[in-house]
Structures are given as C-alpha cells and as structure tokens.
C-alpha cells in the first residue's frame, strides 16, 4: 500500500494546514492542540525530496546535478529558489 501523503494545504481554501491532533499508535494516547507545521514540512513532496538529496550528497551540487541528470546552474537555481521559499515560511525571531 502506498504511504499516504501529508496534506499541507487546505483542499477547500488552500491555506496552510496545522496539526490539531496527534496520537500514539502503541497506547492510543491522544494529544490535541494547535501546532503549526515546521517550514520544511510545509513544502511540497518534490521540494522536500530535493532538500533530502542535498543533505545526502553532503551539499555537493555537482553530485546532485549528475544524479538528477540536469546541469549545475539548474540545480543551483532550484536551491536558491527553495532557500527564498523557506525564508518566507520561517517566522522571523
């Protein structure tokens, strides 16, 4: 069975979703509240995969470009765009 994707946007109005209930699969304890999703989880699955690949290649854009079959500047542009996006999602302290 396919792992269900974590929905990050409201299917009705497209606003960012928040976590309101968490449960323990072992003892069924439930926690309710209002927890915003961390910035990285608010990214679409393909962008999360890109960041994971960046981490797994120790930040080598050249290696990522070779693995993804695209050019170095294309990978760097995607990373720069993603940095801007994460900056906007991260609340300033």
């Amino acid at each position, binding site marked *: 069975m396919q792992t269900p994707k974590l929905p990050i946007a409201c299917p009705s109005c497209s606003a960012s979703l928040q976590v309101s209930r968490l449960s323990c699969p072992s003892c069924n304890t439930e926690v309710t509240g209002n927890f915003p999703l961390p910035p990285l989880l608010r990214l679409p699955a393909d962008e999360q995969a890109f960041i994971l690949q960046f981490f797994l290649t120790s930040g080598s854009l050249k290696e990522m470009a070779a693995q993804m*079959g*695209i*050019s*170095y*500047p*294309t990978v*760097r*542009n995607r990373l*720069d*765009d993603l940095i801007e996006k994460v900056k906007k999602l991260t609340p300033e302290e």
Partner: protein
Amino acid sequence: MKKLLFNPFEKYDARPLLFIGLLGIPFGSLLAYLFGAHYNGALDMHIGSEDTTFVLAFTENIFAIALLFAGLFIYSYSINKKTRPIDILSTVLIARIPLYITTLAGVGGYMAKIDAVVGDDPGTIEKMLPEILPVLLISLLLIPLVIWFFALLYNGVKTASNLKTTKQIVMFIVTILLIEIVSFFIFPLIYQ
C-alpha cells in the same frame, strides 16, 4: 527535442557545451570565408563580401564572442553573484551556431550579386522582382535561425543567472542592445 535545441543549458553541463561551442569557432569562420560572409558586429552576419579571409572571419568571430561574453557576464553577475563565467561563455559559443548556419544564404554568391545590382536604387527592385524573389524566400528562412540565436542567448543567460523578473528581462534586452552599440565602435579596429 525542443528543449535540446532551445535550452540545452538546463540539462547539459557547461563543459561539453563549451567544447562544442569552441569547435564551432573555426567551423563558423570557415563557412564565412567560403560563402563571403562577415561577422561584423556582436550580433551581425552580413553576406556579400569578396574580401573575407578565414583569418578575418575568425578575428571577427573572436571579437563578437569576447564582446557578448563581457557584456552578458557583467549583466549576469550584477543580478546574481553566483553566476559562473563558464556558463556565460558556453551560452555565447552555442548561441552563435545558428548564426554560422545563416552564412549558407551566401551559397553561390546569389545574394551578393543581387545586392551589387540593386545597390541604393530602389527602382531596380521592381525590374528585378523575379530575381529578387528567391532572395526574399532565403531571407524568410533565415528568420527562424535568428530567433534560435536569440532564444539560445536568453535561455543560457536565464539558466546561468536565474533571471526571472520583468525588470531583469528588460535589462537583458538593454544589455544586448548596448553590446551591439559598443561593437559599432570596436569592430572598426579589426579593419585598420
């Protein structure tokens, strides 16, 4: 295929593109020499010259490449400090390939002959319409090559510098025009 022709920079690394582009320099210069063409401007190719030599075409080519590279690198660096010179150089070299192909319009010296006969007298054009018609058709065939040249330049710079906004696109067009204007002053140095 469309992407390969118009934006190879997104997929292929700068080194193989640079290699192909460097091979294009003597190839393009040879075509200019064989078909009596001049690359007498950063974006120019003119047919109808009998004094073209391989060395002259090669020199013009190098000047055009240097000017385009310098102008586009300054522009790209101003919008993105991470721009690599190798990406801009490979863009310029690859983009010139369609320009080299336009020299084929000079095959048989047909265009040069028409140009010599018509000269500056517009009245001759009407009389020679049957002869001029093929030249017009050739000119129409050249338009896609010119579009290809500019599309490659734009896509290469876009990939190298991550240009996006309308302001940046307008500045790119202004940069191209400035490079062409500067080339009007630089190119006469070759012919001294």
